[in-house]
């Protein structure tokens, strides 16, 4: 099949895409793009859309409403971009557009041409009238490669993807030899984005030489890390980019079957991908004899049932085969004998999503981004105590400091930075002294954390490191499949010890035990889950030993987080006579009136939810939290009060 023939088959699709873009440009109907991915919907994007529709029909204004995927700016949801060509303004991005704001925007901007500056986040292109979003650090320090089109195109419309150059990589690949495709990926230095960073090109080459059987390609979208959601965003916002990468990979390794393994907890992602597959098959971009060639590829979606360990490739394969998702000893590697005994390539969503642009723009271009050993970009979901949480894509090699303090706007409420947890349950906590570490596979591993799935939790001074370690252990202990003794029983013991420490029942020798047991679990486990499960404990022990010691020796939680080691009390000097906001909000009726109509906390009843501290008016600020709990003054309920309340 010559290259010309493939191009000839692709030409009509390209023409139609170009034509549709042209039509949009020439008519003067305003376009309202609303971010409708899971996080947008959670912030009320559906109500916003409805409000726009109602307001438009009430005022009989013609406008096009386009639901788009996620831009990654979760802090500003629901986001709306309005392109109003006749207004003289560039396309404007609005943030936190509630239903009420939507109505205002229709009335003021679409009807009367006033863009309502107080709701504006920025213009989406450079201009003289409105500051552009590109001037903000959040936008200009990011380098978008995988997420370039996310939030800018309608995920359900294949032509919008094609108009942006989509499927050009597949066309180029089909016109070349599979060997050339693999060489290109090898030269690009693309490393697996699932966490470990294995070179993708080498994996493909191994699978290609894996035997005479037809190969299988699996896209791993079983994002199990509690706190990472970029795979979901890519599936929901730009599914065709992934499908194109999948097809290029399948062509390279010689596969006729591809499976996308998605978590069943992501219903919108499942729906969007299934629709995208149908749409691509209809246009002969997937399915049988793709673009007129002899290359066939059947793509199906398998819904994973929720097991963190299934992110491991052998466990994932077992799960598709209808078994318990337990990892198996490697070798044989899946590239030799994987799903149903056939050579199988398992690649992460982000890895495959990098492939189309490497094909179109070339390996050298890809190498020019990022660092020498880790080319390309990294995507993180930055959450926790930062001003601008959300999804961020940055070039590899950017420092943690730039990412946290510039791109994500630093720590809110003037609190100080304490630690950043990278890589979820397999990663580690890094203290302030590591903020200048460049973000790439090797530097992070060296520091004791890891790239992992890209979850990043920023913690301020109020986060307790022992509690965070306990949280992750609680997670991995539940998710351990039970195959290896060290992982199954060892994590249980680690958790028990940490539980004890956070309750103030820790013993001095516990700290040593945590360390030796952690090392033993690492060496005694088969798969990545067990090998990395002790990381959160080991890194926090290394960098925050003083906090562990405070818990064990002084029975004190320095961050005032561990509930058994803290207490609330009301400062009678500050408490206002007669105010009883705290009484009303207490879920267990632990607050009572004491002398002088002031309030006090019954320590026996208090569950330490902290609600009274939240509601106490800032001008009084009378609720205090202390650790150890003995520091709280004890005020007894007067006996007659007790009787009446009984």
């Amino acid at each position, binding site marked *: 099949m010559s290259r010309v023939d493939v191009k000839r088959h692709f030409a009509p699709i390209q023409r139609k895409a170009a034509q549709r873009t042209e039509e949009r440009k020439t008519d003067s109907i305003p376009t309202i793009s609303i971010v409708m991915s*899971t*996080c947008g*919907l*959670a*912030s009320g994007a559906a109500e916003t859309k409805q409000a726009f529709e109602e307001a438009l029909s009430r005022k009989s204004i013609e406008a096009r409403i386009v639901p788009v995927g996620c831009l990654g700016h*979760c*802090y500003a*949801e629901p986001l709306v971009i309005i392109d109003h060509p006749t207004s003289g303004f560039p396309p404007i991005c609005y943030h936190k557009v509630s239903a009420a704001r939507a109505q205002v925007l229709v009335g003021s901007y679409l009807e009367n041409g006033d863009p309502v500056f107080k709701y504006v986040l920025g213009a989406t292109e450079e201009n003289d009238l409105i500051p552009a979003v590109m001037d903000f650090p959040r936008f200009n320090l990011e380098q978008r490669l995988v997420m370039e089109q996310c939030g800018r195109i309608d995920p359900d419309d294949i032509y919008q993807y094609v108009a942006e150059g989509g499927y050009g990589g597949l066309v180029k690949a089909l016109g070349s030899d599979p060997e050339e495709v693999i060489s290109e990926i090898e030269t690009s230095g693309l490393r697996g984005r699932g966490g470990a960073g294995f070179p993708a090109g080498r994996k493909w080459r191994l699978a290609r030489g894996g035997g005479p059987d037809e190969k299988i390609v699996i896209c791993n979208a079983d994002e*199990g*890390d*509690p*706190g*990472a*959601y970029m795979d*979901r965003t890519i599936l929901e916002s730009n599914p065709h980019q992934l499908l194109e990468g999948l097809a290029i990979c399948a062509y390279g390794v010689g596969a006729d079957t591809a499976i996308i393994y998605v978590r*069943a*907890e*992501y219903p919108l992602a499942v729906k969007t991908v299934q629709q995208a597959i149908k749409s691509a098959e209809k246009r002969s971009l997937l399915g049988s004899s793709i673009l007129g060639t002899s290359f066939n590829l059947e793509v199906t979606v*398998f*819904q994973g*049932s*929720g*097991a*963190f360990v299934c992110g491991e490739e052998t466990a994932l394969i077992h*799960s*598709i*085969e*209808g*078994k*318990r*998702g337990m990892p198996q000893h490697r070798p044989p590697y899946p590239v030799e004998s994987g799903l149903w005994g056939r050579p199988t390539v398992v690649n992460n969503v982000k890895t495959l999503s990098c492939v189309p642009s490497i094909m179109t723009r070339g390996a050298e271009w890809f190498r020019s981004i990022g660092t020498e050993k880790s080319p390309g970009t990294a995507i993180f*979901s930055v*959450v*926790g*105590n930062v001003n601008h*949480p*959300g999804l961020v894509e940055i070039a590899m090699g950017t420092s943690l400091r730039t990412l946290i303090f510039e791109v994500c706007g630093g720590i809110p409420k003037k609190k100080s930075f304490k630690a950043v*947890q990278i890589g*979820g349950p397999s990663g580690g906590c890094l203290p302030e002294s590591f903020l200048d570490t460049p973000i790439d596979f090797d530097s992070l591993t060296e520091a004791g954390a890891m790239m992992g799935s890209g*979850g990043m*939790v920023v*913690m301020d001074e109020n*986060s307790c490191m022992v509690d*965070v370690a306990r*949280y*992750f252990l609680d*997670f991995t202990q539940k998710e351990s*499949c039970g195959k290896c003794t060290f992982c199954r029983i060892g994590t249980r013991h680690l958790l028990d010890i940490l539980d004890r420490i956070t309750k103030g029942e820790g013993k001095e020798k516990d700290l040593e035990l945590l360390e030796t047991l952690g090392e033993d679990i690492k060496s005694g486990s088969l798969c990545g889950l067990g090998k990395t499960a002790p990381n959160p404990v080991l890194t926090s022990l290394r960098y925050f030993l003083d906090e562990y010691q405070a818990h064990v020796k002084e029975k004190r939680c320095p961050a005032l987080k561990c509930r058994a080691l803290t207490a609330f009390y009301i400062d009678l000097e500050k408490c206002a006579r007669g105010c009883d906001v705290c009484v009303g*909000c207490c*879920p*267990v009726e632990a607050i009572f009136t004491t002398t002088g109509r002031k309030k006090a906390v019954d320590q026996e009843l208090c*569950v330490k*939810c*902290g*609600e009274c501290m*939240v*509601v106490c008016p800032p001008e009084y600020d009378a609720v205090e939290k202390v650790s150890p709990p003995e520091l709280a003054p004890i005020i007894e309920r007067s006996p007659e009060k007790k009787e009446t309340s009984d």
Partner: protein
Amino acid sequence: MTTSELDGEERAMVEEITAMLPHFEKSRGNLIPILQSIQEKHAYLSGAAMEMVAEHLSISPSEVYGVATFYNQFRFHPPGKHQFKVCLGTACHVAGGDIILENFERKLGIKDGETTPDREYSIERVACVGCCALAPVAVIDDTVEGHIQPSRVEGIFVQFQVEREREEREKAERESGE
């Protein structure tokens, strides 16, 4: 809920599964998809349902049970009419998700994974719903509620209570009107 009603429910479930199974090829790879579609329809997997699947695929019921219990998605008890899913992902944990879960548990007198005896409410903890920027998060039936406060938990119950009372009042009015 009386025993006879439950039996009726179970009977209907068995009938529906009998009708559904022939649509699935008898291959082991279909085990998880079959279990998923049963749960999608009936909200949980009963012992009888798992035995029927085992028979269809010619594997032992213990094998089916083993697979089903391995994965977090599958439920083995009927859930309540209203479901509360409290997110305990990393961001929610740091923001105090466990306090929210505790508030639900205390309010209903049940633990996570359980259903109230009147089958009105059930509580579940979930690993991450992917709305970390809105932490702490809870999913009330199908709506995601972000930045949830302990006092909001109380508010949610008041809301359900008011709705229930209104329904009962309307029902009573309809009946007295007839």
